[in-house]
């Protein structure tokens, strides 16, 4: 009977914090790429995911996804509602603690860890609809999306008894299907429903703050070690090789993307390096516990190179996936999931108990490749269909898109009544509105013609 393992628990808790940080990281990665007039809206689309998904998770999400995880014969399509509000989970403060499987990690720790996955998955979608999204509509979409799509899919893929995991013996260690293909499909659906930005293809839309793009990529990379190595739920040799594979694939993907960029445009760009890193992290996510470090070199290099070409699709086909969620997450997720079928190595595959086999290049034959394709196809099909319906429903009711005029003005101003930056040059031009809470005590009309040098006086009796 497993007892608490403080080392594994420490690693899962640390990993949970790391994965939480990925969402703000993503917000900066995306936020730096949009124009200065819509960076705050991008940050908010991500930030609100943290808020609403967490509430849904506590109330029913955890229960639906993992409520029956410790029950080998539990429903393979859907968890349970028995753990709604996480009300019956024993922390072990008194009595016997509820631990996750044989890991010696408290259920609550695993619940924290898995929550962070549920948060970042819908957040990934926001990149496809930058610059033009109605904040309220987006929030509603996210609530519906995790409920109808993420929670069940997470059960299928991550729960020991989920059918994609247990029945189809797909290897998806940290979410190539459940997270990236899933989010990519949702992003494509959203982009199609919401339509192109005003000036798409005509106007230049260059990143307003490339260092933020890099900062975001760095935070994502940092957090991703928790995402992948934390998914071992143990501080073990498996977690260690997963950590190494994550690092290796990310690096070769940077090289792959930069190479493709050099070929296409003759330059090695910063945005390209950051994008390559993300593409590599995406691709290695499902494969990190199936391949050796040598295999990881290819699981990074290939997606890095291919994704750099994939981001051109939106120009060719004319759908405005603004920040390339499809080109990076959907394509990268599919590649990572399928490459397992080629590069999965026996030594690592041994870590799976769901009957998965080694890859084609490692003598495992074609079976695993087929299994991986099946898993990828099912998740894409389900997610894209439901996302499309959901996005359409929200769009026609609450509305997912702001007016064209608001879009041209900038969603930061029109949706959030804020301006991202004020370097001070003209701040003398603002003044307090009459509606101001301070107005009662300090009529601007009077004060606004007071000279600073007499300020103290002007405030003698506020």
């Amino acid at each position: 009977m497993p007892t608490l393992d403080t080392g594994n628990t420490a690693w899962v808790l640390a990993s949970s914090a790391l994965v939480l940080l990925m969402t703000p990281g993503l917000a900066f990665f995306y936020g730096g790429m949009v124009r200065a007039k819509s960076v705050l809206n991008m940050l908010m689309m991500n930030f609100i995911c943290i808020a609403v998904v967490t509430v849904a998770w506590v109330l029913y999400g955890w229960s639906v996804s993992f409520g029956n995880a410790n029950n080998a014969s539990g429903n393979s399509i859907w968890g349970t509602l028995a753990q709604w509000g996480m009300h019956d989970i024993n922390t072990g403060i008194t009595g016997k603690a509820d631990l996750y499987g044989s890991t010696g990690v408290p259920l609550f720790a695993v619940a924290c860890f898995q929550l962070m996955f549920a948060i970042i998955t819908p957040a990934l979608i926001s990149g496809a609809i930058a610059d033009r999204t109605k904040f309220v509509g987006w929030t509603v979409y996210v609530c519906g999306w995790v409920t109808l799509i993420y929670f069940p899919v997470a059960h299928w893929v991550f729960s020991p008894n989920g059918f994609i995991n247990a029945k189809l013996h797909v290897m998806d260690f940290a979410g190539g299907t459940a997270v990236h293909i899933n989010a990519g499909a949702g992003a494509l659906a959203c982009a199609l429903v919401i339509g192109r930005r005003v000036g798409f293809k005509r106007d230049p839309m260059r990143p307003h703050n490339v260092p933020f793009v890099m900062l975001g990529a760095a935070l994502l990379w940092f957090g991703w070690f928790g995402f992948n190595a934390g998914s071992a739920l143990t501080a073990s040799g498996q977690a260690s090789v997963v950590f190494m594979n994550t690092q290796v694939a990310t690096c070769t993907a940077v090289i792959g993307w930069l190479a493709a960029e050099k070929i296409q445009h003759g330059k090695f760009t910063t945005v390209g390096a950051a994008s390559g890193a993300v593409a590599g992290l995406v691709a290695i996510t499902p494969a990190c516990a199936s391949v050796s470090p040598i295999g990881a070199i290819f699981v990074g290099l290939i997606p890095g190179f291919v994704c750099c070409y994939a981001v051109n699709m939106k120009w060719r086909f004319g759908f405005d996936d603004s920040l390339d969620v499809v080109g990076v997450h959907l394509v990268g997720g599919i590649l990572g999931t399928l490459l397992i079928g080629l590069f999965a190595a026996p030594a690592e595959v041994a870590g799976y108990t769901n009957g998965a086999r080694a890859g084609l290049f490692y003598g495992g034959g074609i079976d695993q490749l087929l299994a991986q394709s099946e898993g990828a196809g099912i998740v894409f099909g389900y997610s894209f269909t439901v996302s499309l319906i959901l996005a359409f429903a929200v769009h026609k009711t609450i509305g997912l898109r702001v007016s064209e005029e608001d879009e041209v003005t900038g969603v930061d101003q029109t949706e959030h009544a804020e301006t991202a930056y004020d370097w001070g040059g003209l701040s003398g031009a603002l003044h307090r509105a009459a509606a101001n809470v301070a107005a009662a005590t300090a009529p601007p009309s009077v004060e606004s013609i007071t000279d600073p040098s007499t300020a103290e006086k002007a405030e003698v009796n506020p």
Partner: protein
Amino acid sequence: MKLITAVIKPYKLDEVKAALQSFGVHGLTVTEANGYGRQRGHTEVYRGAEYTIDLVPKVKLDLLVEDHDVETLLDVVSKAAQTGKIGDGKVWVTPVETVVRVRTGERGAEAL
């Protein structure tokens, strides 16, 4: 020699430049500006403090031209910058006594 100054909506800059080029004007100086006028600004909120910002972003163009081109270019600029919505901006002309091209020291028409 005259100086045509235009204050226009930022996103029209590229079109005005394109229009000018098709009339053989290749030089132009651009400055970021902000304007007060009929076009209304907006309100912002920060932790309970509401601020009104009346200033609207604009760009300002300085265009040195020869006297006989003034009328045509005045027209080219205002047409290209026009959206018909409030806030399209102003264009005005001031007299210029001398122009020097720094690189060569050339003056007048040669300096353009």
